């Protein structure tokens, strides 16, 4: 019988909106590691030992992303256990606390939103796999959506294609999101953009508000699977979720109609989870 796997060391956490990324030092090739088991324990009860009720995932990689955390922010004590090819388990690693960041979707007052921030694109048009319909439905590569008039299932395609997408004609697609407001916001406004996946090309998404450029978002390299799968919350999903939340310039939004434009200037498509505008509460 081969020896037990070594104890995992070097566990580090990085918090982001609704998720915590964990990394650790990979173990040697001998014995071969079947997988690492990732346990998330409450931060209270510091001496509690991990059991299978705390298991949040298994991974072959020395990296794991704990998704789907409370948008208001959530913390856990993480413990990693290695399992060898022979089914033997190593000792649990030292516990390391990781905390997700609070999202404006939880802390702010919603002004407008398209879709649900739930790790799924399923409520959006053509999801989960009819991407071939998008260039037919939008031959000019422009997508218009009016808040309060249109609905996500009928007017917001789940993908925004980019110039890297041969199937969509290698065009630079643009969306114009019209947001009517009764009054100008009194406080800072944040824009939340969540994606269930992006392509292996990554890319750049330019954001403009009422004709003013406000941000170029660098798109993470994703799994290129969100064009065919719409639910990143399934256990073992290979979709690579990403999110971007940032403040708009003061005064960017005004009373009346506002137009928020997204232009996929470089790279491949983004698969939307949801997007929204949120006014800070204080």
């Amino acid at each position, binding site marked *: 019988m081969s020896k037990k796997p070594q104890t995992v060391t070097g566990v580090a956490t990085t918090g982001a909106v609704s998720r915590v990324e964990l990394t650790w030092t990979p173990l040697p090739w001998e014995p071969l*590691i079947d997988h690492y088991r990732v346990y998330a324990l409450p931060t209270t009860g510091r001496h509690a030992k991990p059991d299978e009720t705390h298991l949040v995932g298994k991974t072959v990689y020395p990296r794991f992303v704990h998704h789907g955390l409370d948008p208001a922010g959530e913390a856990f004590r993480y413990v990693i256990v290695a399992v060898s*090819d022979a089914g033997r388990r190593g000792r649990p690693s030292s516990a390391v606390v990781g905390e997700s960041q609070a999202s404006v979707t939880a802390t702010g007052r919603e002004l407008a939103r398209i879709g649900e921030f739930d790790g799924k694109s399923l409520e959006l048009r053509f999801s989960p796999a009819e991407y071939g319909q998008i260039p037919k439905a939008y031959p000019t590569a422009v997508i218009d959506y009016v808040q309060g008039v249109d609905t996500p299932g009928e007017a917001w395609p789940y993908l925004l294609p980019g110039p890297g997408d041969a199937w969509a004609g290698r065009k630079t697609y643009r969306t114009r999101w019209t947001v009517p407001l009764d009054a100008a916001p009194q406080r800072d406004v944040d824009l939340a953009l969540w994606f269930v996946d992006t392509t292996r090309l990554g890319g750049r998404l330019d954001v403009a508000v009422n004709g003013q450029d406000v941000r170029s978002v660098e798109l993470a390299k994703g799994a290129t699977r969100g064009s065919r799968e719409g639910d990143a919350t399934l256990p073992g999903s290979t979709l690579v979720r990403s999110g971007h939340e940032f403040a708009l310039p003061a005064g960017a939004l005004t009373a009346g109609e506002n137009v928020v434009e997204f232009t996929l200037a470089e790279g491949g498509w983004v698969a939307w989870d949801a997007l929204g505008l949120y006014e800070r509460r204080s």
Partner: protein
Amino acid sequence: MSSPSPTLSRRRLLGLSGASAAVLALGVNAPDVASADPLPHRENLFGLGVASGYPREDGAVLWTRLAPEPLAEDGHGGMPLRSAPVKWEVSETRDFRRIVKRGTALAQPELAHSVHPRVEGLKAATDYFYRFSVGPQKSPVGRFRTLPAAGAATERFTVGMISCQAWYHGHFAAHRHLAQEEDLDLTIFLGDYIYEYGITAANLWRQGAEVTPAHAVEIETLEQYRLRYALTKSDPHLQALHARAAAVAIWDDHEVQNDYVGAASSTGIPAELFAHRIAVAYRAFYENLPVDIDALPQGPESDILAGLEVGSLARITLMDTRQFRDAPPVDEADRVREDRTMLGAAQERWVTERLRTSQSRWNVLAGGVVLAPITDDRTDQWDGYPAARRRLLAEMRRAGNAVMLTGDIHKHVAAELRGEAAGLPAGPAGVELVTTSAASDGDGAKTDKYTPDWVQHDYVRHYDGRRGYLHLRFTPEQLTSSFWIVPWVESDDTAPKELSARFTTPAGTSRLIED
């Protein structure tokens, strides 16, 4: 521990740590453990069948994997996490009254309770039967035929070709028919023995089949790869095919991940992470196929190259067209770069050497992807490596009577390989025989949207988009290639076989003459 089998490569053993070397050796030969603690009685220990592989003139590798509950979700097949001795015996007769060799190997949890003994000392060009036993339980009986002696005149050698076994897309009617072929000396699995995709209602076209949620996600861990092999190998027709004749196997991409290239994932997983997935995927390949010990990976590196000498009739060279290839081209200038490689420098030298030194009538190469020029955008095939193709075709032409065997595309294709189509001086360079998928893509149709890309070339002599297998008959005078199809695979496993086309390639011609 007793001395390992003399067939173990000293190079491999010396390169491994002590624990790994011991595990490796005992999985092949463990004469001193026959009296070890017996296993608690379990029914159906041989639920994944038996297999033999990599025949030589004096023997072959025997394989089984103990799995009383093949679909146990921890990947250990329902076995306790302890070792168990497995006895094997080889007989000249099916009733085992003339046993000529016997031995013991140790089924260990490190290798998912697989064993890979290599039996040696047998007579050349002879049929043998084998079986395993654990306590009173005996396995099904398998058979293999040793290769003819080196240089011996050989009247005929028959080969079956199988590729692309997406279990969830259909029943294995093709395997059933191939297992029943009157003549079958060797089965070559041309790649995509398993598929890594999650199995859901959207792609489970194999009617009557059900899977648990454990199968619904893309596989990444060793337990998941082991489980996927178990699911695939639980098919009785695949088991029957393995029991029918010795097999060899090369991989394509789905044994790890769709379209991965060398160390690079196709979905953006960083190479330093993806190496861990390659390591467990290659390990599971070793555990589940009757391969020689050199195919046991060390970390994320493995050696599945192998050569078979079929008397004076054929030299068969099994290539790895996935692990050592250059990245997909970034543009046309990159695609046509002279130094682009499909095989990597070391493998290319090895293949060249085998072609240049061959004294066999037929020079057979087996690879995972199509060699013939089809369209420049098929960059996962040799179309993405045109300079490397020119080099290989030049060597095939020089060797003469060259035959390339491939799969991957889920279509039957027969092509005459011509120098002028690949940037070489005009003239024949060999033939390529592409076997369709056994199940991938479901029922299919004779022609489909891809047909025009292929049949636009006059050197593509046949195309059929249905499921099936290829049967080859080599003689000193000619090669006969029979492209068999089954009209359906999704509804059940009862489809009859139908001949899609049969070609004769007279020795010395590099032509495909349809019967």
